[in-house]
């Protein structure tokens, strides 16, 4: 028995660790460091209908234990991704999760319809949570009715299961998750970045050209853990967890919170080998913790029933 194998809608993963969208390009850069086939899956960079340059630079700013980015969904567009990036990735034995973005609902539907036909795309990740574009992105991820409608429309055209990437920039993430589940989503991925900002103390100007950006990295891990903990108890579809993961221990913590697989984002920028290293370290950690299979860890923080939170007590 392989103790890391995980089965999710559309995804048969040899292990539950994958690079997060926007942190791995289309894989070419990291293929210079290691064989991409060791990964559980790859969440490729958000794809829009037309090519996009994205935002002006500076696009990144460092923060305590994290970073802000405002890339702005730069990508070569659907056609190039279909004709060049996905066929190139097909040389690796790894399922692809295609992150789909757009400015209008029609954009999302169009991209989803086509990209879900690619043979190595095993699932879609609906990006309704990018905080760095003026139109679309997070605008679809902050009102439950809108997110639900978009999910329905995409489900109608997609040939593979649809996961929806949740934004933490909402008042009630459980309500959002439930609306999306009810609309027919096959799974959730969470969390996207938190909207943040930094200002240069010499010039009093925002450091990012876009002024605001998405906060990622270890700084947001406790927020991701809390949100997955809440959402996983309220829905019955699986969650791919992300937000500041940089070690095998972090992976287990996400599973305990309620995740069934995880994605590693910012840590790839710090250490290109972080994903294969985590995958290699997981079996020993499972031994240490006394688990035969990693799936036993999912939701353990609340399934045991010993973790009730008493608000205001």
């Amino acid at each position, binding site marked *: 028995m392989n103790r890391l194998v995980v089965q999710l809608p559309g995804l048969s993963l040899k292990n539950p660790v994958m690079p997060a969208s926007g942190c791995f390009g289309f894989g070419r850069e990291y293929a210079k460091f290691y064989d991409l086939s060791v990964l559980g899956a790859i969440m490729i960079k958000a794809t829009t209908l037309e090519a996009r340059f*994205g935002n002006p630079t500076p696009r990144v700013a460092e923060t305590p234990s994290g970073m802000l980015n405002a890339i702005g969904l730069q990508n070569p567009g659907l056609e190039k991704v279909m004709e060049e990036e996905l066929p190139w990735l097909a040389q690796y034995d790894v399922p692809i999760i295609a992150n789909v973005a757009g400015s209008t609902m029609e954009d999302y539907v169009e991209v989803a319809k086509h990209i879900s036909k690619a043979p190595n795309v095993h699932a879609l990740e609906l990006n309704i949570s990018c905080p760095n574009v003026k139109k679309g992105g997070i605008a679809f991820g902050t009102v439950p009715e809108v997110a639900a409608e978009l999910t329905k429309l995409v489900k109608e055209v997609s040939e593979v299961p649809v996961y929806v990437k949740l934004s933490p920039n909402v008042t009630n993430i459980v309500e959002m998750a439930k609306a999306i589940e009810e609309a027919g989503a096959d799974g959730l991925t969470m969390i996207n970045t938190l909207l943040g900002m930094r200002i240069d103390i010499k010039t009093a100007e925002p450091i990012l050209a876009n002024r605001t950006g998405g906060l990622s990295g270890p700084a947001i891990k406790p927020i991701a853990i809390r949100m997955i903990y809440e959402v996983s108890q309220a829905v019955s579809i699986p969650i791919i967890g992300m937000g500041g993961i940089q070690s095998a221990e972090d992976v287990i913590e996400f599973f305990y919170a309620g995740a069934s697989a995880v994605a590693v984002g910012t840590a790839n920028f710090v250490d290109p080998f972080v994903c294969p290293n985590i995958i290699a370290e997981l079996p020993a950690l499972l031994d240490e913790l006394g688990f035969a299979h990693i799936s036993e860890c999912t939701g353990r923080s609340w399934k045991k029933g010993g973790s009730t939170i008493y608000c205001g007590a």
Partner: protein
Amino acid sequence: MKEQMTIVRHEQLAKQIYELTLSGSLVQTMNEPGQFVHVKVAEYAPLLRRPLSLCDINKEAGECTMIYRAEGAGTTLLAKKRPGETIDVLGPLGNGFPVEAAKAGQRALLVGGGIGVPPLYELAKQFVNSGVSVTTVLGFQTKEVVFYEQKFLTYGETYVATVDGSYGTKGFVTDVINERALSFDVLYACGPKPMLKALEQQFPQKEVYLSLEERMGCGVGACFACVCHVPNSETAYKKVCSDGPVFKAGEVVL
């Protein structure tokens, strides 16, 4: 491509300017002047690596030297590290200066501005070893941040300009080039964008190579933080870290 390298020497050269020499097996993979290493200064904070361009590659000794300005949180922390300590280094990364563009018997003009000076040193060394004559023009803000003038002098004629006139010619590197009517076959430059722009505009007929500085995330081309536009296109781009940092003049929009 990634190694814990050991600090062999770490000295202050000028105000806020430090020279860091590391030893390790990665040095044997370092060849191109203009390439950089991506350095993890601390285990937890700051989170991201810092790109430092290669200033000197010494394969016999198994050592490489970088020069940086201690300014932000990361480089200030780096400046406190002492010989014997180790540093997590990723690299060499990026595409360096095309050394072969200048042929034996030709003259290369090397122009550096501020903390853009270091990569030109390894370049000058490789040129002199391959029979290319070198003229160097170095520009700094003020006298107290001038470094490596003597080192460049061992490879050829070297001129220094300071913006405030406290050392060398008062003004910019272009003032030195114009006043002395410096002639050359190929030009190589590294420094702030206004300097690179001025050089690109002044020598449209010449073969010019420019090394860009840009705020980077990953340093390997994955995060799309350090992109720049390509002429005559809305969506085409180059990444400074992995397509550059050295570009032929005109290849990208400065």
